[in-house]
């Protein structure tokens, strides 16, 4: 399945730091493998070959001078195309931002550079991150590397596919309602959404500001944790960045083991899911039990209301955030006689159908006479949901469930049915509404041999417990795979 460089981030960094391999050769190999292998997958919308090679030379020079370029020295990283890169196109996979060149770097881009990592390109996504299949991209869909007739999930489908295909060991995405975890599950990689406020959103093009959070993709929990550590921390340029969020190192958490941890298997995150997904989640929970965790099933009825609340809150915030695309300061302009007509003509030509649908929905939910009934009510449900989580976390340290109701579906299968598409996020949305961290870890396969992801949820700021459990699930998956291979 791997079409690229199968090396992990730690190997690359250690070899670059110890002169065994040059960052330049890593980048050359990665660019070459993407150019050769991505025409079928289409995980990238643009490559940054020139700046990546330049950056690699800087890293090599730092090593040559006997200094340390950082823990991700020479590691190629792909960025979802809603993360601003100074001097390099950032489109949100939307026509309205075609040709726009950001005048600044996102904070996460600066942090990657400070750690020695090298941004090699920008990945495809659902337009403005609105979608669960990467099919609403203006640039066309990305395909699942496991089966190119299937979607990679979304909205960060390009980042998930790029890591799954082996083009890059690490990628960043953004998660508003599951946009990191769901594609990670569908592509068989690790994807994680940090606590709201852990990672600066400065330079992340806003979709729904109270829900958006940047997070890592990797092929292992340890690599995802390392990337998360690099990008997290307070940033005064993001007013929602947590002040007291010094993340203790994740290293110890990854090997701590789950003995004595209280794990809740959430009924609502299993109900009505595909049978093989349910089986994998139960097997993962059993593995946690065998490793010494106290595993118990728990019902959180309030989770059933999360989807409805989300599909009012997120579009409402989006309709406000996307008001800035008016043909004046950046992006597409379609000329007309007066300003209002120019605004409308530009937006009409620049936004695709899903974005228009959400803007319409959000505008309606916020409009006079409906605000209290829809947006106001959804905000109260959010309070209810957070209280329900708080109560459950008195009894449990972490929760587990499915990440996605099903494995990767056919391209086009849900394109004309918005509600069916929205249901793809039913398991991931609650963590966004609550601002909690959650991770998806691959665990075996389901229908057609396609990957299944198990989701681990934790309370705010408890990423480490989440990583501990994720690492044990990952080991159990690898043990099961080895047993399976030995049997055949």
């Amino acid at each position, binding site marked *: 399945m791997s079409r690229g460089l199968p090396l992990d981030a730690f190997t690359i960094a250690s070899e670059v730091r110890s002169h065994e391999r040059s960052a330049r050769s890593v980048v050359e190999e990665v660019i070459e493998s993407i150019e050769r292998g991505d025409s079928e997958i289409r995980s990238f919308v643009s490559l940054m070959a020139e700046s990546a090679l330049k950056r690699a030379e800087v890293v090599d020079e730092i090593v040559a001078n006997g200094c340390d370029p950082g823990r991700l020295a020479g590691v190629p990283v792909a960025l979802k195309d809603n993360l601003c890169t100074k001097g390099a196109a950032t489109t949100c996979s939307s026509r309205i931002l075609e*040709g*726009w*060149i950001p*005048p*600044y770097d996102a904070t996460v881009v600066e942090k990657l550079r400070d750690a020695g990592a090298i941004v090699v390109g920008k990945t495809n996504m659902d337009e403005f991150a609105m979608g669960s299949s990467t099919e609403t991209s203006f640039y066309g869909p990305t395909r699942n590397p496991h089966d190119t007739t299937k979607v990679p999930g979304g909205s960060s489908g390009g980042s998930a596919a790029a890591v799954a295909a082996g083009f890059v060991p690490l990628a960043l995405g953004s998660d508003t309602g599951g946009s990191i975890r769901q594609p990670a599950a569908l592509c068989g990689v690790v994807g994680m959404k940090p*606590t*709201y406020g852990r990672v600066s959103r400065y330079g992340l093009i806003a979709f729904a500001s*109270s*829900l958006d959070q940047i997070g890592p993709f990797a092929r292992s929990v340890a690599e995802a944790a390392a990337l998360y550590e690099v990008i997290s921390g307070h940033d*005064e340029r993001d*007013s*929602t960045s*947590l*002040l007291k969020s010094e993340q203790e190192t994740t290293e110890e958490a990854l090997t701590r083991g789950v003995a004595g941890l209280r794990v809740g298997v959430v009924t609502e995150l299993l109900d009505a899911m595909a049978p093989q997904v349910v089986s994998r989640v139960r097997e993962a929970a059993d593995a946690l039990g065998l490793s010494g965790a106290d595993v118990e099933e728990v019902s959180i009825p309030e989770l*059933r209301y999360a*989807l*409805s609340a989300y599909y009012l809150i997120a579009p409402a915030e989006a*309709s406000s955030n996307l*008001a800035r695309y*008016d*043909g*004046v*300061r*950046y992006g597409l*302009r379609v*000329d*007309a*006689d*007066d*300003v*209002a007509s*120019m*605004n409308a003509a530009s*937006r*009409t030509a620049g936004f695709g*159908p899903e974005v*228009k*649908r959400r803007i*319409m*929905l959000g505008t*309606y939910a916020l*409009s006079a006479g409906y605000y209290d*009934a*829809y947006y*106001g*009510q*959804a*905000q*109260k*449900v*959010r*309070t*209810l949901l*957070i209280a329900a989580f708080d109560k459950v976390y008195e009894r449990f340290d972490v929760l587990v469930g499915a990440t996605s109701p099903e494995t990767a579906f056919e391209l086009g299968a849900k394109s004309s049915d*918005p*509600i069916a598409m*929205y249901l793809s996020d039913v398991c991931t949305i609650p963590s966004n509404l609550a*601002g*909690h961290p959650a991770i998806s870890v691959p665990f075996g396969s389901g229908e057609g041999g396609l990957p299944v992801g198990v989701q681990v949820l934790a309370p*705010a700021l408890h990423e480490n417990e989440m990583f501990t459990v994720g690492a044990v699930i990952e080991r159990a998956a690898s043990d099961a795979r080895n047993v399976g291979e030995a049997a055949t």
Partner: protein
Amino acid sequence: MKLSRSEVVHVANLARLDLSEVEVELFTEQLGLILEHATDIGALDLDGVEPTARPVPQENVMRQDEVRPGLDRRDVLSSAPAVESNRFLVPRIIGEEP
């Protein structure tokens, strides 16, 4: 929750979107279905429950009011659709017919 065509046309105008007849038709149906799905939370009695606007409690952040460099004006203007002497250019506003 059924939506009327005229409500959809009104909302499109608020959102500065020109919808075709076909889109008005489609959105009237689809937005109606999505709002229909939301009747589950509409039915909840949440009187007295405080709304949550952001998931993590926040405090105001203050800093010294000192001069710092901003973005480079040329960089910012270079991505604008139309520019005239260091300004964003838009179609005529003043003097328009009301």
